[in-house]
């Protein structure tokens, strides 16, 4: 299996006013193409910081993040913006759709920033909305969608541009059980169909139960890395 993400001795220290905090401590991991991985651990264990580091949203204090042979640890901000745009999809806890755009426009947004052709872009957006079961909500703005529906649009947005991997920071935290299962079914199916690497940070047992790999972080360091055949 081809390695998509590789971290080497990844460390992030926050200099708080009281004492420096090691949010991520010397983490070396590899993530293969098409993996469905859950990063778990108690609050403050460094899950989100780790995701931010491998997503290029934050700079490590030490160590490297290598994505497809490209070290993004010390990349300039302008290049990092382009890199993220082309290679990484994000799903956040609180949906975070653009409120003034319709579902289709939200899904098209990243492809639009990538300057994709209009027709292909719209076709792909509609296709993705169909895949997440929202073909009847194409022209609806986020305020008219339920939380679960908004998160499905967010998933469609993250996957529409066919990124190398998708980072999802507690995507089911704000969803009821039915919506959460529904979303996980969709993500799991898309993971298999599109062979996109999915990495979740989560507390949610429903997500953990679906993951084929579970990495447990404690105090910023990897305490367990288990693989499951699901």
């Amino acid at each position, binding site marked *: 299996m081809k390695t998509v993400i590789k971290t080497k001795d990844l460390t992030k220290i926050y200099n708080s006013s009281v004492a420096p905090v090691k949010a991520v401590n010397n983490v070396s991991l590899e993530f293969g193409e098409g993996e469905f991985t859950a990063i778990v651990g108690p609050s403050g264990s460094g899950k989100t910081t780790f995701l931010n580091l491998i997503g290029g*949203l*934050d700079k490590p204090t030490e160590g490297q993040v290598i994505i497809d042979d490209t070290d993004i640890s010390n990349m300039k901000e*302008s290049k990092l*913006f382009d890199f*993220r*745009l082309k290679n990484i999809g*994000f799903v956040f806890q609180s949906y*975070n759709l653009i409120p*003034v755009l319709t579902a289709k426009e939200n899904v098209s*947004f990243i492809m639009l920033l990538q300057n994709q052709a209009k027709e292909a872009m719209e076709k792909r957006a509609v296709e993705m909305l169909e895949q997440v079961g929202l073909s009847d909500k194409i022209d609806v703005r986020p305020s008219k969608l339920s939380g679960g529906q908004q998160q499905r649009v967010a998933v469609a947005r993250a996957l529409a541009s066919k990124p190398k991997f998708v980072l999802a920071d507690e995507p089911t935290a704000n969803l009821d059980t039915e919506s959460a299962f529904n979303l996980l079914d969709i993500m799991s199916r898309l993971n298999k169909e599109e062979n996109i690497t999915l990495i979740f940070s989560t507390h949610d047992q429903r997500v953990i139960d679906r993951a084929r790999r579970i990495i447990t972080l404690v105090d910023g360091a990897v305490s367990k890395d288990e693989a499951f055949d699901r």
Partner: protein
Amino acid sequence: MKTLLKLAWRNLWRKKRRTFITVSSVMFAVVLAIAMMSLIEGTRELFVESVVSQTTGHLQIQDVMYHDEPSMDHTLEYGEEVYSTLEKHSDLIDYTVPRIQGFCLGAKDMGTRGVFVMGIIPGKENRMNNLSSRMVEGEMFSDNDDYAVIAEGVANLLELSIGDTIVLIGQGFQGMSAAGKFKVGGIIEFPMPEQNNTMVYLPLQEAQWFFAAPERLTNLIIMAENESNINTLAQNLSDDLDSEWFAVKTYEELMPDVLQAFETRDAQVRLFSWILYIVAGFGIFGTIIMMIHERLREFGILLSIGLKRAQLAIICLFETLFISVIGVLSGIVVGFPIMYWLNKNPIQVGDDLAEVMLDMGFEPVMPFSIAPDIFIYQATTIFIIAIVVGLYPVRKVFKLDMISAARK
């Protein structure tokens, strides 16, 4: 860019009421500023029009020394050089009004009075300022007559009436004494006491003989075909006339003190209108601050998913510009018809003030101008303020820590 514009436009209408209030504040500031500037410009136009038509004309050709030392010794020769120069530029000239004028002593019996004698061609003077319409008794002379028309105040002070004789004594050209007696053939009334108590009119040729200055003028007034060509005409005439003998002066050069007084008043009004702009600017700024701070999390997310800081800054800048442009356009749309109506139907001022204005030779109205400059100035000023205000969100976006913003 189209997408960024679309986003900015839609963002504006997320909170319709707030946008409406901000746009309204800009609109009212623009309408008020337009009204003030329109009144100021209207007053200035009325004043200039009045002074130009009553006194200076658009331009004057004078002897080179006359402006600094107005005496009969500094009259100009109204001869071939002047004629040919005027002919050369006749396409820019509407008409000319020749005058010879000077202070004299007017007397009747034992009474004497300082008077201002002006030799004129009545037809040309009427075209410029409709002088004959001010006649209250007798009639205006024609070019070949030899009698005087005097102002009502002079007539009262010297107890002159139609048919009486006024004796004039003054200084003529090159040390000659100017002395003559003229029958009073008409009495004219001026609203300004300064004019009403001093003016004595003689036919031009008669005045030239009186001042011993035949074929000479103190000033040759020129009315331009088009007001916008005054400076060009002045330059052309200056270029063609011998600068050793002749000077060409525009009305602005002939009354610099008065125009300076207007400039001072304009500056005060501009200062007040800038206060309005600042109030409007803070209105926009307040809205923008709220719009930015309530969306910091969204900004963090947008930057995370791939929107560049410059693109986000453009969205924010366009939001500011949209508010300002809508406000300014609404202000102009509301303000222009009001100013247009006031321009066509000027407000009549009250009795006391009307009397003062009449005394000063002005129509007793509050004139409003609809010069395009006024509206362009408002639009440009608010636009510049919007750009300045718009720099705040731009700076904010470029300094934004996207992780902490996304967590808000």
